[in-house]
């Protein structure tokens, strides 16, 4: 733990993420306005005491929308990564444990999925299914499990030869319990690191989809769509671009710092 706290990367990442998480959770309490409250007499006002981050094209308070947008960004990140990790862990365990033709089959599938440009896939599927927050989360999850699969598989390969696993097997434990009790717990490091990094990537993908019009749809507020709404007046209503852009940047930065920090801390090799 100490090492973790002394690593400046991990620490700053953790602080950033916790701050955003807390802000997102208490959004209903601290948001000064309802994020969907329209005031057509306050259209596109710059930041002021009444509106800390200004107002948007319908007079809605940007600060409140940003707070609720944090909920959306985090939700997309967590659920998408949850799905990806779940699939990755399952497939990786199967491939790493059983090897042989199971491994070959799964790895071929991984290779195929890795060969198709992911963003193209995501675009096509979301456009065809109509964009909604659930579709986005599921599609991002379904297209980012490949990395986790490989990592889990690699860990299993090296762990499987350890004595306690062989001992378990001879003692007759069933495969499932070996996987759950011995192999998975020791493979957590890469899973955690890749999940954290995956959240960062999911947040970026959602904002990219919003830019293309295929992200979370109006009137739900997301950082991506606040940014996109304001892109045509970037010189004039700078607050519509600055705040969500910075928020995305800081959040993604936080997750990346945490992920890399965790990797540094948990990887026995990197001791300097």
């Amino acid at each position, binding site marked *: 733990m100490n090492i973790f706290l002394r690593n400046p990367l991990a620490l700053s990442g953790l602080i950033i993420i916790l701050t955003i998480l807390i802000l997102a959770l208490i959004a209903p309490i601290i948001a000064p306005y309802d994020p969907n409250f329209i005031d057509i007499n306050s259209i*596109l006002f710059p930041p002021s005491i009444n509106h800390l981050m200004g107002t948007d094209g319908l007079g809605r308070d940007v600060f409140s929308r940003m707070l609720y947008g944090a909920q959306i960004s985090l939700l997309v990140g967590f659920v998408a990564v949850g799905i990806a990790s779940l699939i990755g862990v399952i497939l990786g365990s199967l491939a790493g444990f059983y090897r042989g033709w199971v491994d070959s089959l799964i790895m071929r599938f991984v290779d195929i999925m890795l060969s198709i440009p992911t963003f193209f896939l995501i675009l096509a599927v979301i456009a065809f299914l*109509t964009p909604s927050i659930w579709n986005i989360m599921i599609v991002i999850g379904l297209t980012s499990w490949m990395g986790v699969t490989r990592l889990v598989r690699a860990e299993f390969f090296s762990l499987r030869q350890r004595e306690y696993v062989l001992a378990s097997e001879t003692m007759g434990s069933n495969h499932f319990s070996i996987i759950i009790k011995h192999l998975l717990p020791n493979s957590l490091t890469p899973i955690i690191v890749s999940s954290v990094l995956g959240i960062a990537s999911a947040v970026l993908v959602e904002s990219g989809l919003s830019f293309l*019009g295929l992200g979370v749809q109006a*009137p739900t507020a997301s950082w991506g769509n606040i940014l996109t709404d304001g892109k045509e*007046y970037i*010189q004039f209503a700078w607050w519509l671009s600055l705040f969500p852009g910075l928020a995305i940047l800081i959040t993604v930065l936080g997750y990346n710092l945490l992920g890399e920090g965790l990797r540094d801390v948990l990887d026995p090799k990197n001791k300097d």
Partner: protein
Amino acid sequence: MNKKFLFSNFFAIFISSIFLISCSNDATEVVDYDGEYKKDLGGNLINAMAGEPSNLIAMIAGDSASSVIAGNIFNSLLKYDENLNYAPDLAESWEISNNQKTISFKLRKGLQWADGKPLTSADVLFTWKLITDPNTRTPYASDYQLVKKASTPDPLTFKVTYESSYAPALDTWTSLHILPKHILKDEDINNTFFSRKPIGSNYYKLDEWLSGQQVTLKANDKSVSGAPLIKKLISRIIPDTSSQFLELTADNIDVMNINPIQYQRVFPARKDLQQKIALYKELGNGYTYLGFNLKKAPFDDIRVRQALNYAIDKDEVIKGVLLGLGEAISSPYKPGTRWNNPNLSPYPYNPSKALKLLADAGYIKDKNGSLTRDGKPLKFEIITNQNKQREMTAVLIQRRLQEIGIKVSIRVIEWASFVNRFIKTGDFDVVVLGWGLSLDPDQYNIWHSSQQGPGQFNFLGYSNKTVDQLLELGRKELNILKREKIYREFSKHLLEDSPIVYLYAGYGLSAVHKRVKGIKKPAPPAGIYHNNYDWFIPRPLRRNEILEQ
């Protein structure tokens, strides 16, 4: 040590280059854009398009980018003048027979294609045959199929006979681009290279088409319409509207459609932009509406529809969404035209009247404040496509309806899904959509009860016998004054029935660089673009261009 030395040297060079470059480009010249200039031939006009044209044969292409470009290259038999009356284009005159079923067009003498070959009635007949050919992949055939017989008694005359008198006929002849028979007669129109390399007869011809980047037109010296003053029209393909705006402010494009916020808020705040760019606003020929699925309860109840009409504050929508740049309407026609019924006015915002009508229909507020009937709350979903203004409109409507106790949810759907999954299947409650209309008042396709098939335009399911008869009559009546009465009557019924709520007729907003002179002020009824062939760019105001050798 070595590395550091190199690095700092490189850094110094880098910084000084930036200074040099910025110094050389910040040389400001004082140009008087507001002065008077005499007409000059030449210059380039650059505009931006979001989409690339797919095919310059307008009858086959479905997209607006294609028809805009093609409109500069081809002529039709007729066109509209600045007051929206019919005017000669290829035809110098036309006559309608006594039985009102035959029109004879007389072509102007000496018409030529851009390749020098003569343009005659044979080309017109050829074009008509093409568009009515079942093998031609065009969605626009139906109007022209109403022609029972077409003939060319001589090279300057084209005659068409309709089954029965068809009032919109002349309007249909303003939008059929006449194609050259001598080039296309042996070609498969669906696959011909002509779509990328057209030969027309109008002011401009295609100079160059850089796929995905820009389309350049240059003046056609054999133009049947005379020479345009601007030599070249360059249309740059810039899909992102924010990039377009940046290009406009950097002086790289001359013309652009802008949105209400740019018009009302951004430009007034920028003195530097106002010095070189002028703004124009004019009413377009269309409107935005809230449409009810008339086949679904409770929208089949006229009291509910009228109530919703009273419950929506249209002025608020115009103020909030369009920043005031639009008008409320009560007929499906452009305000200021003869088809508009001046005796009608929009449903005013009156929530108590709305509540009363809903009470008549059985909806009463329960203890939570929601309107319910037989225990079921009144709630529905508004769907719309990805159009910023429509989204904002839906949000405003949602709020007003929520205030009187109706639960409204909103769904924004991408266009292709929207049309195929919801509209064509009739699987929707309420839509926010718009119509872009032709100048002829005929609205048979939209409101006649026979047009309710899948993919047809009466997707709301409107059926009113009186309106049906009026629409049928209006199509046959060639006398303008009688037609006026028919369509005003039609508008009156439509307003009473309230199958839709007219939300607004928005202004078309344009930003045009001040170097472009010759724009008519005030804009005539046909709009500022009507005389764009008379626009010119005075020599002193032309941008520094890479000149042709």
